[in-house]
């Protein structure tokens, strides 16, 4: 190690550990390759990158479900095939109970008895048990003014649910109140709900009780009432989507 090397004092780098003279030769030999820092991209890597980009394009096209915002399954065929092979069934009574608890229970009460003097009862009510065409109209457009239920007169405002419930929900909640509290009246089908909705769609204001009482029948061609039995009432998704189109 050449302590006497004059360069030693001039090299003021932090890296003064090793003597320059002793290293000079290997340094020069190490740098023999003028290409250092200049190597081209190896061919195999270019091939790999080309392959990756090709794969990326394929994968993006094949598993993006047509770039639709409502397709969550990477393979849309599987999503839709699975959908029609095993239709999702909803018991209208279960759905109806859920809707009742969310929307009606604060006035008509869980017992269906209403609040005396304020909100009419549903359990045993002639309006609920009677023909369903009045009931459907009340739910769609609401009811205002005096109304007599089970011998007592109520004067309140029943809100309209036309915008809130689609036909399936409308039918479900009506089926539920007609079935529950030992009412035992036949259910309402989504198709008949849709028909009534279409029939009264131009009406702007809520019904009056006397108007409804004047109705002798559901003045439109409704499908046969009570076709699906309450227990076995299952709705096919095809019917569901068709009915759901009506707002």
């Amino acid at each position, binding site marked *: 190690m050449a302590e006497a090397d004059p360069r030693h004092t001039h090299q003021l780098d932090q890296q003064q550990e090793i003597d320059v003279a002793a290293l000079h030769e290997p*340094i020069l030999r190490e740098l023999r390759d003028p290409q250092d820092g200049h190597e081209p991209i190896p061919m195999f890597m270019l091939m790999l990158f080309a392959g990756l980009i090709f794969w990326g394009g394929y994968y993006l096209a094949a598993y993006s479900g047509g770039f639709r915002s409502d397709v969550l399954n990477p393979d849309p065929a599987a999503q839709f095939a699975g959908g029609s092979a095993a239709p999702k069934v909803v018991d209208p009574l279960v759905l109806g109970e859920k809707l009742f608890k969310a929307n009606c229970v604060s006035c008509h009460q869980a017992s269906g008895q209403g609040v005396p003097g304020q909100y009419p009862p549903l359990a045993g009510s002639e309006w609920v048990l009677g023909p369903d065409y009045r009931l459907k109209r009340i739910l769609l457009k609401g009811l205002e003014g005096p109304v007599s239920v089970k011998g007592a007169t109520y004067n309140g405002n029943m809100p309209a649910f036309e915008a809130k419930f689609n036909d399936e929900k409308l039918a479900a909640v009506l089926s539920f109140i007609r079935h529950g509290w030992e009412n035992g009246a036949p259910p309402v089908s989504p198709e008949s709900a849709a028909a009534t909705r279409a029939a009264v769609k131009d009406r702007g204001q809520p019904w009056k009780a006397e108007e409804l009482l004047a109705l002798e029948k559901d003045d439109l061609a409704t499908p046969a009432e009570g076709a699906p039995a309450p227990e076995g009432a299952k709705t096919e998704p095809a019917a569901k989507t068709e009915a759901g189109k009506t707002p």
Partner: protein
Amino acid sequence: MISVYYVLVFGIMLLFGASIVWGLWWALRGGQFSDFQKGAQSVLDDDEPTLRPCDVFPDLREEYRKELARRANERKA
């Protein structure tokens, strides 16, 4: 409210997309991609000897010296 999102998201997106493109354009025009040899060596200063360790365990200095001397001899041989 929705329009705030659109302005935010698309505005920022455009801004950053444009800045990346601008950066690339700047680098191309400024000759940053023209001399790769120089680029690689720019990190090592002229007065900095190459193939020189500048970081070592405090107790391995002597050994490291010997290792380098050995390497130098091997290359000579």
